[in-house]
């Protein structure tokens, strides 16, 4: 537990210092990494802690982006207010949706969330008068803080990562708390958790709502950073990508979600060299990683650390011989 916070402190320093080494295009990649990390952590609360799948999380991300985008670009609303409104509206929607949908389990829950994601995406595409349809919505203003306008990459980097770090801290706090334990208990044995007095139904809805709110905030930030949004960014493919980030990173591990998000953000960029074959390499990597790292990247890193420690101890033993 203490180790998580120590690691987090170290992580903050790395995040703060990163712009010294990365500029221009690379800094832009790091901004996307921040947004993806936020989304992966949000989904991890639901999938990794409570063990409930969602194949429609891109919809919450998209709703946050579009609500914020439409309120500001079309109706001239203050961007911060728009962000807050989007978060509350998506929270209410998720809360209302959570009660019926989270009664379902396993494949059925997957199908229901998948359906929800597709419906929302169709709405983005078809309500052209509000969303601009498939060609997207442009003219979304940047966020401002006093006289500072978040328009450059560097400013956006710090803006996004402030929110991302805050989300990660929430996740770490939750993991080591009464609620986090109850969620993990539901994951391991729902019936035993209920017998212990855990109200599984309410708790699942609560974490679903929290997860949706964080995703909506990420969507808002995305809209105000990119200043342009289109439905293609919030489709089924992205929902699956989010699930992949969480699983590859390590279920229930907050730092794992960062690793998963980082990998899935960087990989497509790296694979540009192999052009059309990128999807093949991508697929193979995912298969190999899930086969040989069942604990995800976070589990892999921990195993590597253990291995280094034991080999070092062994060489010390040899030296003493």
């Amino acid at each position, binding site marked *: 537990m203490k180790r998580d916070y120590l690691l987090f402190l170290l992580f903050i320093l790395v995040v703060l210092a990163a712009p010294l080494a990365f500029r221009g295009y690379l800094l832009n990649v790091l901004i996307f990494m921040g947004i993806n990390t936020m989304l992966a952590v949000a989904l991890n609360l639901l999938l990794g802690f409570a063990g409930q799948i969602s194949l429609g999380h891109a919809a919450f991300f998209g709703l946050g982006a579009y609500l914020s985008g439409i309120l500001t670009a079309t109706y001239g609303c203050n961007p911060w207010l728009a962000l807050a409104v989007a978060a509350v509206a998506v929270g209410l929607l998720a809360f209302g949706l959570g009660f019926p949908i989270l009664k379902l389990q396993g494949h059925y829950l997957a199908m229901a969330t998948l359906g929800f994601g597709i419906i929302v995406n169709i709405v983005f595409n078809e309500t052209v008068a509000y969303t601009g349809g498939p060609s997207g919505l442009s003219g979304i203003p940047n966020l401002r803080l006093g006289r500072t306008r978040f328009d450059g990459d560097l400013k956006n980097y710090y803006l996004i990562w402030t929110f991302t770090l805050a989300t990660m801290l929430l996740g770490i706090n939750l993991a080591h708390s009464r609620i986090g334990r109850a969620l993990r208990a539901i994951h391991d044995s729902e019936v035993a958790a209920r017998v*212990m007095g855990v109200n599984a139904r309410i708790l699942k809805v609560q974490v679903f709502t929290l997860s949706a709110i964080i995703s909506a905030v990420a969507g808002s930030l995305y809209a105000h950073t990119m200043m342009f949004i289109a439905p293609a960014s919030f489709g089924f493919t992205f929902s699956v990508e989010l699930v992949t980030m969480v699983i590859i990173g390590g279920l229930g591990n907050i730092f794992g979600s960062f690793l998963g998000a980082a990998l899935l953000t960087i990989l497509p960029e790296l694979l540009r060299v192999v052009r059309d074959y990128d999807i093949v390499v991508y697929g193979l990597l995912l298969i190999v990683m899930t086969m040989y790292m069942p604990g995800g990247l976070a589990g892999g890193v921990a195993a590597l650390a253990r291995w280094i420690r034991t080999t070092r101890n062994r060489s010390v033993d040899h030296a003493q011989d």
Partner: protein
Amino acid sequence: MLRIEGITQIFGGLRALENVSVTVRQGLITGVIGPNGAGKTTLFNIITGLYTQTSGKVFLDGTDISGFPPERLATLGLVRTFQNIEMFSRMTVLENVLVGLHTRSRSGILACALKLPWHLAEERRMREDAFRRLEFCGITDLAHIVAGALPFGKCRLVEIARAMAVNPRLLLMDEPAAGLNSRETAELEELLRKIQEAGATVVLVEHDMELVMNICDAIVVLNLGKKLAHGTPRQIQENPEVIKAYLGEG
């Protein structure tokens, strides 16, 4: 304390329980025995809210608790353990017991996520409390071990510590001695007496007759979904109906 009135449970064409009525007196250890398929576990599942009975009622201290979900029963002090141990296997032993303290803690999802001061104070109190439960079951040294890595016998103890964390007034145990060796069974017997001294009423389903006869103050015998007998261990041992059910007709 616990009163069951005319419970009938029908699964498809099978009458798992037929008009079973039992009264469990406070402070006693009551054993429920019977051949396989007698309906013991079904009865437990109904009392603890996992099944809804076809007909009949369950009362706890005079309150009708029929159809209450398990999480609500836990707040009333009714807890159970499982025959095949439902451990939270990826959590440590301490965390398992902390989940048992869920009903007696308040911090919500926001207080936990934001680490508000009262949440921290509560967390400290819960840890102290959880360690007392571990000590009660003699497994303090296992606190930081992941539950899934424990041998079966230890899991039993963790499950009991976890159930005791709820401060049960009524504890239902489904075959607590199943899978235990003779030394572990003897330890379990001692633990059961401690639980009784601590003021909990215990009902247990058990096949280990020696344990049942040693520890139970009252015994209920079920056979083919019907109550066959209810009495002290001695009465049960001498009851011709019971002997017939267990040994067949001579």
